[in-house]
């Protein structure tokens, strides 16, 4: 068996798990383990939890996100949403194996923006290679890490389609997704989540992605997934243009039943997304799990209260939208916050998203069909910035670990809320600019070559029939 150094941690911090690994620490990092040492480095509980988490995140996309979005469009476009999400998931899985994993999770050498192609087509990855976690001398089988991260690459581009739902050309969309994954998502994942790992950073203290190096905290994908997809969606909604008839013609959701089912599947799947992002099954996993639960409860209640005050009626769509906003907001903070600060975050995020969905969209006049920007981007920004606050040990947060020493150091007294919030803001602005500008260039090229939009007749007829030749419902 060969031990291939794999450099694939996910963001910094996090380390109650260090205690669990303590017995193995005395001898120092195990860099060339023999079979006996390896048996102590991989935990069956971790492996089982991470494989279940991977399946849970897949469930978020299909059917969760597909039904959540699908219920919100008109009957004539239901099937197109289901098909777009299903196809994006399938295509993203292929792209991930071919070059995505390598670009995201191999070292870029002195280049902090993207990794190399040494693991393209999963070259050199097999049943005997390992991926780092956040604990010294604790590893995952590399395939487990590959498939877990694959599910993130599947759902992120699928999130985008909600912004220009009901008016995009299918073939162009799929080409866009492949290009967007390659030049936006994989580099973002590399910049935020790639680092040498707790046993290797000591020897390679600059081997990390750009934002990880800044010290930006993103537990499960506030910047990489939600801000990234949200701003790409907004740019797409503006460049593709408004739906025919928007905003004069009523475009009410065709099935809030489907939307509620989808949102609930998202909530359940999100435990794999957030708690799974700890890469181990330990105390911090429990922290991320309970934070994900309670922030979502708070945000759902908060959105309902806002509606009750503003309209006199609390709506189901409002409650489930609030829940999704809460899930988005807690994503970057899941493993850093404490339950009560997570609840505060949930209560705050809903009114802010509500302002964007109910007022800003109408005032500015963009047609973000399913509020990808208003919920995912804005919720992601709130969560990313708030992570700098709720991670503070003085507020019960988990703080940040120093992986430049072995074993990793923990200095809660050194945590600066102001300093961390400033880093978080820089990470948010960077993501908005990188993804916003990069996506605009991709949309422009595809619009000029393939065309992004079906013709007016096809759009009026509905994308189900005009793009796919079938209907969602035949009564």
């Amino acid at each position, binding site marked *: 068996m060969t031990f291939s150094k794999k450099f694939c941690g996910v963001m910094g911090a996090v380390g109650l798990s260090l205690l669990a690994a303590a017995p193995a620490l005395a001898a120092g990092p195990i860099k060339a383990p023999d079979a006996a040492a390896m048996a102590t480095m991989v935990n069956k509980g971790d492996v089982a939890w991470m494989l279940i988490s991977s399946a849970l995140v897949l469930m978020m996309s299909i059917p969760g996100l597909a039904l959540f979005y699908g219920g919100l469009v008109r009957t004539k476009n239901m099937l197109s949403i289901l098909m777009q999400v299903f196809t994006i998931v399938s295509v993203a899985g292929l792209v991930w194996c071919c070059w995505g994993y390598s670009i995201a999770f191999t070292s870029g050498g002195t280049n902090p923006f993207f990794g190399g192609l040494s693991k393209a087509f999963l070259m050199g990855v097999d049943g005997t290679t390992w991926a780092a976690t956040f604990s010294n001398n604790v590893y995952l089988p590399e395939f487990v890490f590959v498939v877990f991260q694959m599910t993130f690459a599947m759902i992120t581009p699928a999130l985008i389609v909600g912004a220009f739902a009901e008016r995009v050309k299918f073939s162009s969309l799929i080409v866009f997704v492949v290009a967007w994954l390659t030049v936006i998502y994989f580099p973002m994942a590399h910049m935020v989540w790639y680092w040498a790992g707790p046993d290797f950073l000591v020897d390679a203290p600059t081997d990390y992605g750009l934002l990880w190096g800044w010290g930006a905290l993103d537990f499960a994908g506030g910047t990489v997934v939600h801000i990234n997809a949200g701003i790409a969606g907004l740019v797409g909604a503006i460049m593709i243009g408004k739906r025919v008839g928007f905003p004069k013609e009523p475009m009410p959701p065709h099935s809030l039943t489907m939307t509620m089912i989808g949102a609930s599947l998202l909530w359940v799947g999100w435990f794999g997304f957030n708690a799974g992002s700890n890469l181990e099954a330990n105390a911090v996993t429990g922290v991320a799990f309970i934070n994900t639960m309670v922030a979502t409860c708070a945000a759902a209640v908060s959105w309902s209260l806002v509606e009750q005050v503003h309209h006199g*009626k609390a709506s189901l769509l409002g409650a489930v939208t609030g829940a999704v906003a809460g899930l988005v907001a807690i994503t970057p903070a899941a493993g850093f916050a404490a339950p009560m600060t997570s609840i505060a975050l949930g209560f705050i995020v809903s009114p802010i998203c*509500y302002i964007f969905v109910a007022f800003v969209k109408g005032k500015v006049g963009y047609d973000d069909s399913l509020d990808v920007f208003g919920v995912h981007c804005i919720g992601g920004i709130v969560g990313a910035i708030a992570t700098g606050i709720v991670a503070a040990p003085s507020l019960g947060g988990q703080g940040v670990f120093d992986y430049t020493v072995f074993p990793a150091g923990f200095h809660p007294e050194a945590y600066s809320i102001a300093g961390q919030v400033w880093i978080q803001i820089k990470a948010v602005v960077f993501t908005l600019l990188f993804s916003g500008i990069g996506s605009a260039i991709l949309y422009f090229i595809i619009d000029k070559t393939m065309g992004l939009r079906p013709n007016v007749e096809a759009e009026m007829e509905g994308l189900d029939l005009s793009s796919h030749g079938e209907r969602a419902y035949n009564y």
Partner: protein
Amino acid sequence: MKLVMAIIKPFKLDDVREALSSLGIAGMTVSEVKGFGRQKGQTEIYRGAEYSTNMVPKIKIEVVCDDDLAPRVVEATQQAANSGAIGDGKIFVLDVGQAVRIRTGETGETAL
């Protein structure tokens, strides 16, 4: 023969059916319809976007009966469907030229 056509509030359907059954009416046709009258439409709000629907859902009942029974059908329907609020609906009575029972070919009132 008369066709009694009534547009009523959906939740009044069972009351009307019971009232007409007790008169000996053996069959009716019911459709879900939409329309507007003096009753205002409804306002729906989705994530802050307000849509006013100016068509209100109603139930349309069609009953064919002999001429003598028609006034009592109208009266029973009017009383059973009445909630006292606007939007209770309307009743129309039309003459029917012919009726045929498809299975047997019987015509006229015996086909009812």
